[in-house]
């Protein structure tokens, strides 16, 4: 009973973790930019869902959709603003890490001004009121709705990457920006769009995170960024499909530990990240080397 419960809960959380980390992985895979502000964007998404729900009674699921266009515009503009200077740096990847670390601090400070440091949460009733039965056991309705909302988002993104012209161009840039430019792809615009999509994914996941990670505070960004890193490191950095695998592994590991060793569950993402990073250093870490 306990084991079954942990496995089902792990899968529900796993799908959500995949959604949570997808934006970070997409931006890293295509642009080689480490978006350390990822967790803070998720945090902003949580506040968006909160405001929309309590001001206008909009469903948090609607917040995911509403956020898409503004996020793509803002994210794309930000990318176009900083990319030329980053490209000139001696070590662009490392510089992007420090730059987005600064941006994350700015977002955190502004959020603390705007929303105060008190924790806020959205009532679970926003997503439904009755527990859902799966295999004879009852699960909180929020878990099921969040997982059910995450799956279509993942499917849409993979359809975009796999079936559309722009998505194929994005994958071409991911494989090699120079060769993509050589065949006539506008690398700059594709990159800007991808950055915007990554931002939209992070903010969208935020409107669900407020249910899965328990409330929202302006300082939660760092831990969400680490959690997302654990997911994408396990699944393979720069590999969008791997994110799903990573999410499920982390979800299962976390729920199983929570069930059988509850005091140690919070260690799971860190230990998993370290274990994978250290045991498969090149395979998981370096896409560039793998392709060469």
């Amino acid at each position, binding site marked *: 009973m306990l084991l079954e419960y942990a496995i089902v809960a792990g899968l529900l959380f796993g799908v959500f973790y995949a959604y949570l980390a997808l934006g970070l992985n997409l931006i890293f895979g295509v642009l080689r930019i*480490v978006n350390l502000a990822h967790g803070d964007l998720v945090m902003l998404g949580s506040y968006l869902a909160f405001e929309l729900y309590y001001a206008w009674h909009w469903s948090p699921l609607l917040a995911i959709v509403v956020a898409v266009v503004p996020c793509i515009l803002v994210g794309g503009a930000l990318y176009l603003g*900083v990319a030329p*200077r980053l490209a000139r*740096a*001696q*070590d662009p*990847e*490392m*510089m992007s*890490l*420090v*730059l987005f*670390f*600064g*941006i*994350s*601090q*700015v*977002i*955190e*400070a*502004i959020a*603390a*001004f705007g929303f105060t440091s008190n924790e806020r949460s959205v009532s679970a009733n926003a997503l439904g009121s009755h527990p859902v039965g799966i295999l004879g056991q009852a699960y909180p309705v929020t878990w099921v709705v969040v997982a059910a909302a995450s799956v279509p988002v993942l499917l849409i993104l993979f359809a975009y990457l796999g079936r559309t012209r722009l998505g194929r161009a994005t994958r071409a840039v991911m494989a090699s920006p120079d060769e993509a430019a050589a065949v006539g792809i506008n690398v700059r615009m594709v990159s800007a769009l991808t950055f915007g999509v990554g931002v939209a994914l992070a903010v969208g996941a935020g409107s669900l995170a407020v249910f899965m990670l328990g409330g929202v505070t302006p300082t939660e960004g*760092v*831990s969400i960024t*680490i959690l997302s*890193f*654990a997911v994408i*490191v396990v699944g393979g950095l720069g590999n969008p499909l791997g994110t799903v695998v990573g999410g499920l592994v982390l979800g299962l590991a976390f729920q199983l530990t929570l069930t059988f060793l509850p*005091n*140690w569950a*919070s*260690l799971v*993402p*860190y*230990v998993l*990240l*370290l274990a994978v*990073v*250290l045991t498969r*250093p090149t395979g998981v*870490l370096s896409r560039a080397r793998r392709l060469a």
Partner: protein
Amino acid sequence: MPAAGFVVANAFYPNQQELVMMMVYLALAQGINVIYGFTGYLPFGYVGFFGAGAYGLALSVLYLHVPAGVGLLFAVLAAVAVAALLFPLLRLEGVYFAIASLAAAEALYEVISNPSLAAVTKGPYGINLVSAYNANASFVAAVALVAVSMGIVVYLRTSRLGLALRAIRSDAVSAEFAGINVVQRRTVAWLLSAAMAGAAGGTFAWYTSTFYPGAVFDSSISIFAIVFALFGGVGTTWGPALGAVVLFGVYNAVGISQPQYFQLIYGVLIVLLVLFLPGGLGSLVQRLAPRWRRLRRTPGRGPEALPGVGGPDG
């Protein structure tokens, strides 16, 4: 010299705690300088060593009943032990190292603050060292901490070890060809840097004498140390010290009652530094100094106008 400065400041400035914190951060910024400035590894989880040092001192005082001054040695030992445990992280590069070290520090915090280990580490309930409290002695320890950490950086700037580290940073493969033992030198820098943070953590623990695990593993400690070091300019002797004194001063002026303002200020500062001045304030001085010197010398001096003659003197 900066150590003497703090002693003088203590005579005039009423808030000793601020001075101690400034010295602790100066040591941390220099520790970041040693590992990031000289090897290129950026440890986002640097606070792990600080926390290990704080607990090294606290637990040795509580269980071994050593005087707190001796406890500082245990603080260094604890941090060095953690650094040795994390040797495998040095196989990682750039971003992966930064993230993995962050995860390692968080993991260490989760272990030490875990209720299951409350019998040993007091878990989440915190440490009380009031019996060992000694404001004057711990102030002296902080002054010594500043002197030693400045000394380490001066040593690295002038010694073969420092030269080897900078060679490794700019091109590890060529350095290896030139006969430098890359792994060994990096390891030394890593242990030195950890020891500095451990000593800083021990000093902090001694001075404050009561603390919760969340306070000594607070990720904003790593953030401050990195920001101070970057602001002043890593790889230099004075940059991180200047960064710590100036920015911690700003923090005391605006940050304590309104931490968000300070966070906003240094967030913007980092963005501007990365985009416009990647070498930190120190590089600005280095870039402007020769020009300034040339500007003063030019009247009546013909050869100065030749390109390269008035160039940087190293």
